[in-house]
């Protein structure tokens, strides 16, 4: 089977998804992903010239909410699950690359 996705591409996808793998795991995914992509190529044999792309299969009008605020009182519970909280802020490792307004 020829490679559809190169190892470099796979590493880029992992980096974008912030996932880290051992070399062995990476090789296993390398094989899996290529098999999946090969399967898509098989689907490509279908003649879909007159079919528009489908992202959702439901055509009903989605639910909407009215513009009236309601208060949710569970944030204390969320704070309990946060590793570090300071003055009601969730504390995360500093990201300095991007300037903040």
């Amino acid at each position: 089977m020829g490679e559809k996705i190169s190892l470099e591409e796979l590493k880029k996808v992992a980096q974008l998804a912030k996932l880290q793998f051992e070399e062995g795991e990476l090789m296993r995914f390398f094989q899996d992903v290529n098999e999946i992509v090969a399967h898509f190529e098989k689907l490509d044999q279908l003649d879909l010239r007159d079919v528009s792309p489908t992202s959702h299969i439901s055509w009903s009008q989605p639910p909407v909410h009215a513009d009236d605020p309601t208060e949710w009182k569970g944030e204390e519970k969320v704070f309990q699950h946060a590793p570090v909280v300071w003055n009601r802020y969730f504390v995360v490792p500093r990201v300095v690359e991007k300037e903040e307004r």
Partner: protein
Amino acid sequence: MADFYVTIGLEVHCQLLTRTKMFCQCGTDYIGKAPNTLVCPVCMGIPGSLPVLNEKALELAIKTALAFRCEILPQVVFHRKNYFYPDLPKGYQISQYNFPVGVNGFVEFFTQGTKKRVRIKRVHVEEDAGKLIHEGLGLPPNSSGVDFNRCGIPLVEIVTEPDIHSPEEARDYLVMLRSMVRYIGASDGNMEEGSLRCDANVSVSPSPLELGTKVEVKNMNSFRSVFRALHYEIERQKRVLLEGGMVIQETRHWDEREGMTVSARGKEEAEDYRYFPDPDLLPVAIKPEDVEEIEKTLPELPLERRERFMTEYELTESEAGILTQEKDIADFFEACLREFRKPRLVCNWMLTEVLKNLNELNIDIMQSKITPGSLVELIKMVDKKEISGTIAKDILEEMFVSGGKVKEIMARKGISFITSEKELERIAREAIEKNPQSVADYLSGKEKALHFLIGQVMKMTRGQADPETVKSLLLKELSSGE
């Protein structure tokens, strides 16, 4: 120096004036609130929570797209824009991609004395991110604090085609955009508070036939900083080209303090948003009859109103421009005219004294205590010479602060009321009778004596008479007495 052709496209984000967030019912009134008080599982990205669209946000986005003369697409689709940053709890922002709310619009505005049209590429809705702070007493070192109060507030993004060719045009476009979103009630357009944000794509080319390399400039927090940043960036790119170099396609951040743009290169090269349709949100069909209903709610827009003020009230382009930039000011002006149809007179008062008082108090006209009725009452009294212009200005100042009718303020401040010229005539005669020497001096040709007499009348009226009227009355009395 060689000619350069400057091309600018602007992307503006405006916070929509909804009471709730875009996909949950948390409140949006986040300014001054304690961190993480306007939050819920949806806007904090807690697994298992599902977004439900805010109808009002979509309506305001359609209204914005219509104001910018866009075609409204029959179907609105939400996409996930994926990136990692601590202010984005889900790991993606719900935005729009190939099916935005509106496309192919335009906007017209005056710039440097001529009317300009800028094409609008697209108008779409998306959710805002949270806020990070990097400093604070007790914040652990090398860490940042995350506040999700702003996260999920609906934004409308308005993207131009690259039709802008100078920082002046960019500024005038932004002034018009801000005025429009405020007119239609879509956003308060406050750039300093971050409810209007602007990014710019700038390129410079030695040839009008091809575009130069595009640089994206971010982090501009006021109209003034947009103007300065564009000016700086254009000069920087020209310098690079003149020195035989090449402009690099990159993102640059405006540093307000240093007055320069700084490369953010390297940081965003891994940026690959992997847009895909959000499976949690169904596409929304936009019915033509709904669009028609929304279109009916559009008010007369600033440019139309400006042009109408010029023809209907015979105002100059700049007068009409100032009066129509803010809807409340234009409404106030026209409310005055309904009671007193002298546009020239009312315009003069509006552009000088009214705006001066608003500036000094740093408030909007709606926040002030003045009403069209009380302003008209005041202008009428000056027009009939019942009070002097100087006194009227004092009264106006008082009206801005404490409100009330002209006569109430006069009573309160102990200003008497010169009802008619008859009353003034009497006072003028009295001044003449009491100062025979001055009268003699004047009659023997001493001009100065007249000024003394005018001064006496002003004193007797405690400064409330109009000096010009006093002068003419005195002259009349003096000549009849000869």
